[in-house]
């Protein structure tokens, strides 16, 4: 029991500290993308941009932001592994505005080893839309391919995200 408690405390601590420290680029970000991976990354972009609207709080370049969504961390500077980020996307971050996206989160102990009752007042909010496993995989792949461990976003990154039919990226032109 003690070991279980320790394990879930560690997992929770990781979630709470997510992104607080800077870390080197994760190897996955540099991996050669297969065609299927490229499709998945593009799909993940749509999750990040529109379906889960992660960008409302984290900003389009995932550099973090403030405001009505909460003080959202920079995912460019996160030290989470893909596995840990997957858990945060599915389970949210307890005690913060980061929502959970697994429909069944906290109905059993899949999230940090806690149920809704055990989480009490630290229970994170539900996301506007729940995500399937494929969608969670895609958004995590997208983040590691485009944002995690990268430096400040560039004009090219902006055009890649928003397209060329908007003034959105003009301020970033050199």
């Amino acid at each position, binding site marked *: 029991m003690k070991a279980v408690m320790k394990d879930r405390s560690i997992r929770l601590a990781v979630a709470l500290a997510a992104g607080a420290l800077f870390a080197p680029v994760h190897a996955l970000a540099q991996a050669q993308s297969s065609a299927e991976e490229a499709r998945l990354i593009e799909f993940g972009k749509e999750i990040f941009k529109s379906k889960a609207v992660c960008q*409302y709080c984290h900003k389009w370049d995932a550099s973090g*932001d403030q405001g009505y969504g909460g003080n959202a961390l920079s995912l460019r500077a996160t030290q989470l592994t893909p596995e840990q980020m997957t858990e945060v996307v599915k389970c949210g971050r307890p005690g913060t*505005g980061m929502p959970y996206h697994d429909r069944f989160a906290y109905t059993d102990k899949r999230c940090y080893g806690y149920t809704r009752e055990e989480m009490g007042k630290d229970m994170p909010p539900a996301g506007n839309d729940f995500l399937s496993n494929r969608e969670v995989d895609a958004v995590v792949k997208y983040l590691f391919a485009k944002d995690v461990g990268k430096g400040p976003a560039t004009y090219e990154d902006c055009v890649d995200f*928003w397209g060329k039919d*908007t*003034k*959105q990226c003009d301020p970033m032109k050199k």
Partner: protein
Amino acid sequence: MSMKFFAGAVTGALLTATALTPARAADMTNERALNPQREPQNWILHHGNYQGHRFSLLKEINTDNVKNLKPVFTVALGGLQSGGRYAFGNLEATPLVEDGIMYVPDGWGSVYAIDVSAGKKGVIKWKMDPGTDRAWAGDVACCGVNNRGVALWKDKVISIALDGRMFAINKATGEVAWERKVADPALGETLTIAPLVIRDLAIVGAAGGEFGIRGYIDATDLNTGKAAWRTYTIPGAGEPGNETWKDGKERWKHGGGSVWETATYDPESDTFYQGVGNAGPDWDPEYRAGDNKWAASVLALSPNDGKIKWGYQYTPNDPYDYDEISEHPIINAKVNGEDRKLVVHAARNGYFYALDRINGSFIAGKQYTYEMNWTPGLDPKTGRPLNYNPNADVQVYTEGTHGSRARPKSDKLCPAHTGGKNWEPTAYNPQLGLLYIPSIEGCDYIETVPQKDFVDQGGTVRPRERFSGGATVIRERLYGSLKAVDPATGELKADLKLTYPNYSGALATAGNLVFIGGVDGTFSAHDAKTLKELWSFNTGTGINAPPISYAVNGKQYIAVLVGSRQSQNVIPFSPELKNTSTASMLFVFSL
């Protein structure tokens, strides 16, 4: 082709066109704008009248027969595209109706002229899509893709788009006569407000209080499509009120004070009353020492030149984001036996205020929300929060209700930063002397983050970046209420607790009814004296727009826009609404 034949052909074509075209609606004149009560079949001003009453004189639908009210037609609108930080556009507009034609925008600024004269269906006569740069504008919209309505002027419809442009549209054809860039998203400014037309001026203001703007009220000369005047809500160096920015670092230049809901207008004194938004940054008041005028205030202004006649600030050095952009109804009432000219306001900070509209002096104030903890009350003479300290540069209201740099995470704040009452308008029944407040009830939390400086002040924050000095956290379910108060005193006359916070605003009618919409899609009619629900219909998706009433061929209709982005403040703790899909619909009801 001979010239003679050509002239004949043109004349013939014109005659044919005339015969086939319905009689053109009368031009919208100043005379009509001053007297909407003469044409109760129409809804020609944003708030129903300049005084902001949202009261329909129609009474075919009344307390006795409202149980028979039913939907008679719906019209699907557009505006569901994604853009910027949003997955789709909202519907928050108040429709206008003139002689059987409805004029209404969607969130992205497309304007629809809908022929509702048949009473059985609505036919979209024309649609003007302004081609809004959705990513550019939507990335600096704080709270959704919103457009709260259009205005009528002469033979034109005056509209705005989120990307800062104003349009004059031919009412008959939908052709744009001119457009003017008013607000600049490059600076974090957007337009969401329904224009207020007074004589030949269209008055709007810029939203962007979370993006480091310096707010303003702006008038366009409708005859030329050019700027007439602009008055900043945050006074500049040397202007009265600038001394209330005591930081010594010119932080008034990014001081917020946004404007995003339509003002009321008193023709008698030729004064309009504009509510003004929060100071920026929202939740780091130590960044902007001083009272921060005229954020969280009302301004009385002259429409001809935009000169400020007086101002009244509700929450000095506001650490909560209690912005007060919403309507300020104009009401005449007896106060202690004396006839008084009032301008009243159900404030986001949870208090109802009655001010003397001639000089801005405080007359009455009363808590209208169930829960309130940021101040123990208002000073009976000044209306200032009782715990306001005139000798302090940074206010400390009730300990723990706001964040600070020393203690960033607040305890519970009531009402929540949303209010109280947000932009959703009140309605006033002058026959009963009751003001209806559609409220948001409940509490939330604030987390302060020391605000970094703007690049033009030696810092790193660039235009279009968020400038809010922290964040809000919702940890519990918000709920709502509908309240009827005496506008002279704020005394509660009737009260109805609602399952959900109200995000639609209210309509009052001479049939002694009050209509509201709910985030669960429930559209309901209430007894104007008791607020008891007399009828409801569920539209199947959230309602975030205020209803109106109009008549065609003597038959009364109630209309409301349905479908919106569900608020992040509601959904996470209202799991029963979790799977609601959005829509973009006009619903029309009649007996």
